[in-house]
């Protein structure tokens, strides 16, 4: 005598369809996240506030969905990939880097006169299917941890952005540990 799929949809529709004039976020993300993780249950007052604020409930849903989406990535084997700038790469015309596991390629391309960086998932690589299914938000960081690129993986398994540093890629990576990493972003992009 459980809830049917249709029951769940109807409940979700009823809860999410409510609107209250001058509604606002009544609980901080931190409070909601701790309640979702079971680290700190809501106080009675906070619980009442959540139930009385449809907007805060929508925020809770967003955080809950985000946790589930990221959990899906973690359930897969991929936690991140590292790559090195090889000696042979240090020439002037660096246009491609690979991670050691062969999962990711970094391309440097000229986009309308300015340099762009593209990270691309190799669909043939082990574990790539899991990553593609989850389409996580990812980050590329250089050897000193500075952000090179971040974004949501698109349907082609790619993510692109402008090259953020003054120095050209070869020189930049050379000066910053000659390595880089591609990692899932801690929380998905909104």
């Amino acid at each position, binding site marked *: 005598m459980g809830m049917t799929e249709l029951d769940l949809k109807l409940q979700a529709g009823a809860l999410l369809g409510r609107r209250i004039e001058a509604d606002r976020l009544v609980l901080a993300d931190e409070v909601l996240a701790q309640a979702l993780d079971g680290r700190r*249950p809501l106080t009675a007052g906070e619980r009442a506030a959540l139930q009385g604020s449809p907007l805060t409930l929508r925020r809770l849903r967003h955080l809950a969905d985000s946790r589930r989406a990221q959990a899906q990535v973690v359930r897969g084997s991929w936690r991140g990939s590292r790559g090195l700038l090889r000696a042979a790469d240090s020439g002037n015309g660096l246009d491609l880097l690979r991670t050691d596991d062969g999962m990711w390629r970094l391309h440097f391309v000229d986009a309308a006169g300015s340099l762009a960086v593209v990270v691309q998932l190799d669909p043939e690589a082990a574990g790539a299917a899991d990553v593609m299914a989850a389409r996580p938000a990812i980050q590329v960081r250089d050897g000193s941890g500075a952000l090179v690129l971040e974004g949501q993986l698109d349907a082609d398994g790619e993510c692109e952005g402008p090259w953020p540093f003054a120095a050209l890629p070869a020189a930049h990576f050379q000066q910053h540990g000659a390595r880089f990493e591609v990692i899932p972003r801690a929380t998905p992009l909104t």
Partner: protein
Amino acid sequence: MRLPGTRYQEHGWEQVRKLLGHCSLHACARLGADTLLDPDPEQSLGAYVDAVAQALHAAGAFTERYSNSDGNSYGDTCGELALTLVFELQARPADWAALCTAVAAEHARIGPFWSQPGGEALLRKKFNDLYAVLRDKVDSDNYQAACGRPCSPNRMYAYRMLDTAWHEVARLFAGWREHAPQVGAILGRDVVAMPIEARQLRTSGDCKPEWIMRWSESLEAHTGAAGPLHTRSKRFASLKNSPEKIGAMLREIGEYELLSANRDQDWLHDASQASAWLDDYWRVLDESEQGSTPGPDLILEARQDELDAGDGLEPEPTIDGGPVEAQEAARLALVAQQLSLPPNYALLAALGEDRASWAARRMAHDSLPVRLAVYLKLLGPFDDSYPSEWLDPQTGELPTMQQLAGLDGISLPTLRKRRDAAVARLNEMAGMEEERRWA
């Protein structure tokens, strides 16, 4: 402009607005515009929502004609966006009451203006105003739900003003030769050669707040119209002299535009786990009831957004679309025909219902047509989970409100009343402890 969660801030809005204006006039013509004078706005709101939804369908909002025109870069079509906004209105009776008050005031002044020459445009303007306010309410809520930062409709409006402003500055920079005096005023120096800034300005984050301020300040001298930061309205008073606030907002627009550039679908809420979050919600409530954290409640205080301190909501000026083409009107008149249900529909639909389900039990005292009206309102005319017996074989969707009222032998307003009462009861019960035990 794209910001986290927003749906109504991109190029397609003009089309959505026109569609809503057009269909609202059509709905008023069908209901009689004096419906808007009904002393009970809840009553007229229900009638309007049904009529305008029908008009949207009749106008072909969901056919090729509009489905090819994306309303935003998430791929929502203009028809979908218009209908979603109508459903939002349904949940916000205060906005509807404001429209009715405005119409009643006009009526008290000049009588039934809608039937006078030019009166349609005036009525359309009222609806334009309604939806202009509503889209920013909806999107500021969407923004808050998506990123957890507070936002108000006025702030959303200010983001859009700044986005328009920097594009205008970029346009002037690109044509610096023709606009040398104006570009000079923006940069604060004489422009004799191509300014380096023209080449550097690529995204909103590159746009210096001082340029926006000087652009607005000098706009009147160059175009005759006061700049948005320099009108008599106090709307942007808190921004006017705050370059750091302008800069932060411009950067946010630019950063999100970049982050979301390769976003081609709403990946987060795919259908397979559309209600998985409900489990999390129930668990959060359960754990709180079982062993709530003692001590002070960490509830955020209400903070007023500085941008709300101005004049209050004055709708942005809208350009009115031309009169409805006669051809279009004739086509619409033809479509408004009543579909009839097969004679054994009620029996089959009742058999198709899962009597043991939560919803059927919680609405056991309502008639089947009322229960179906609840589904229609909360989930829309079609959902994968509907038993096929519920669908009208002619449309493949749930029967319309009109059909359901006929089926129940009650009037449409009565059906709406019963439906809304049932929804209110579901709202109260959804998420309550005894309900969760079903799960």
